[in-house]
């Protein structure tokens, strides 16, 4: 009992520490670093969406960046061209992307395993083609610039620091919702579908609908990430929403570990901050990064979180066996 209390205290302390760090962070670091962290959190939201559809429901999707692009372009059109309020634009981005994912899901989820992955590659390429060429709706190859800033009422988010609070607020909210989803019946049905579809349908789960809902939830997160990206960078073009970026998200979640949202967080932090720390490597950066992914998959096939859990389990086991030995068992 006492042990449990100490654990709770430690967690509380860590949360307080994190809050203090978050609140003070913009005051103690450069604008550039805040920018990097903002992009990290947007990546995190996109990877979190992949966690829902890939980590929970077990469908490896290569279309997340395309969904993000849909969210970004909806926001850009709504707020800059038609003059709706940014909040409304953001909500429409989330709903629009979710609706798109839900409807296209009925077609794509008729396919299983590899075939689903390929159809999402095709979807991603189609979306990128549309982003790059539809001059009327997306600005074509030029992209869309001079996007309006995010604002609530009269309060305009016009600095990196203000965006930092906004984005981190959304990230925390999204993480809590996904954590709740993990514990909910819906989340458990996702995992049932991931582990064994036939068994899941025997338990009365509608496989197609469940996968669709997972894809739609990931669509909400992607729409949010895309909308925030459009507000933050003020300029969007088709090159930001291409297949390599989608593949990167899959790599990120595998590096972090696809078994929990913490893996998504660790992976996105690693992928965004490593280039900053390893700046002295210059041109060799990407090469080392590619080789590093291969090496990491050999050493830690379950990602950093999975590897950590294994290590912890081994530690506990060894401790127990030592206790047993001391007691002469």
């Amino acid at each position: 009992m006492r042990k449990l209390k100490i654990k709770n205290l430690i967690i509380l302390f860590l949360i307080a520490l994190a809050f203090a760090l978050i609140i003070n962070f913009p005051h103690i670091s450069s604008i550039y670093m805040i920018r990097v962290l903002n992009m990290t959190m947007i990546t995190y939201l996109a990877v979190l969406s992949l966690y829902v559809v890939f980590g929970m429901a077990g469908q490896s999707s290569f279309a997340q960046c395309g969904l993000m692009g849909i969210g970004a372009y909806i926001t850009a059109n709504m707020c800059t061209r038609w003059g709706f309020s940014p909040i409304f634009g953001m909500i429409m981005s989330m709903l629009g992307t979710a609706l798109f994912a839900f409807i296209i899901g009925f077609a794509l989820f008729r396919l299983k395993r590899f075939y689903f992955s390929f159809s999402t590659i095709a979807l991603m390429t189609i979306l990128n083609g549309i982003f790059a060429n539809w001059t009327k709706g997306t600005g074509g190859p030029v992209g869309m610039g001079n996007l309006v800033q995010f604002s609530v009422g009269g309060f305009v988010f016009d600095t990196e620091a203000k965006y930092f609070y906004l984005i981190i607020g959304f990230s925390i909210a999204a993480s809590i919702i996904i954590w709740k989803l993990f514990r909910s019946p819906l989340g458990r049905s996702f995992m049932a579908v991931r582990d064994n579809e036939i068994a899941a349908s025997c338990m009365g789960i509608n496989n197609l609908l469940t996968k669709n809902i997972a894809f739609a939830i990931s669509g909400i997160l992607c729409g949010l990430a895309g909308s925030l990206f459009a507000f933050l960078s003020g300029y969007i073009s088709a090159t930001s929403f291409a297949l390599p970026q989608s593949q990167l998200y899959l790599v990120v979640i595998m590096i972090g570990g696809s078994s929990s949202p913490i893996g998504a967080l660790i992976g996105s932090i690693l992928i965004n901050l490593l280039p900053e720390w390893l700046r002295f490597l210059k041109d060799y950066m990407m090469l080392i990064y590619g080789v590093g992914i291969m090496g990491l998959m050999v050493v830690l096939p379950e990602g950093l979180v999975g590897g950590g859990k294994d290590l912890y389990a081994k530690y506990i086991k060894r401790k127990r066996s030592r206790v047993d030995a001391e007691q002469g068992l």
Partner: protein
Amino acid sequence: MILQLIVTGISLGVVYGLIGMGMVLIFRAVGIVNFAQGDFLMLGAFICFAFNQKMGMPIWLSFAITAVLIGLSGIVFQFITYWPLRDAQDKTIIVSTLGASIALREMTKLIWGSTPQTIDPLRGGIVKIAGALLQWQYVIIIVFAALLMSMVYFLLEKTLLGNIMQATAQDKYAASLMGIPIIVAIGLTFFISMLITGAGGVMLAPIFFITNTMGVMAGVKAFAAVVIGGFGSVQGAIIGGLLIGLIEVFAGTYVSTTYKDTVVFAVLIISLLVRPQGIFGEKISEKA
């Protein structure tokens, strides 16, 4: 005009078919999908560029050397990405090949720079067939790719080596009980797969420019070819490749040049919905 389009489409299509065939061979042998296949096409083009342009060797000689070298690099690739992970889950191997794809792209960029390069065509000039003017390169691609494909088919179906490879692909454990060295069979499969992919790169290089991203689109289109043809079927990859090549060329001419890739992948999604198992695929019911 129509004949020219058909020849162009078929020559692109056979190259997609070659890459797709490489993917199918690997998929059948070890059950994984190789996301770095397109990058071996790019690597083949660059190695040939090094021999042909930098060292000034004749194109056919550099083609032959490239083919062997790229096959050997396939064996190395196998030892790095597949062999240490052979007991891991599919998704781990997929991510490992994605990492290999990034590493290959960056390596070629570091070695040869990012300016687009070109190599000598296998045969320059123009030939007149049935009243249509065609570039020799397209005709040679078709002839040569057909030759390569039939050679691989002969090797797989009619020789002892092919039997060994097929046995390994079907059941590794049983094959090892028959005294087949599995690692040799798998290594050989990767050798052949990468050899035909690299040869495709050398043949495409004079038509497109050689850049370190030329493999991305070609690789994705080869995927499309394989899926349309039916995953795991060699003749399916070839037919699918031809279809993709023809659709791409005709859509580029009659629909719109900017949307030709969009049309290709829309066709892929439609074909997946109509016939998910592909043209030559067999419907396998799920096992509990």
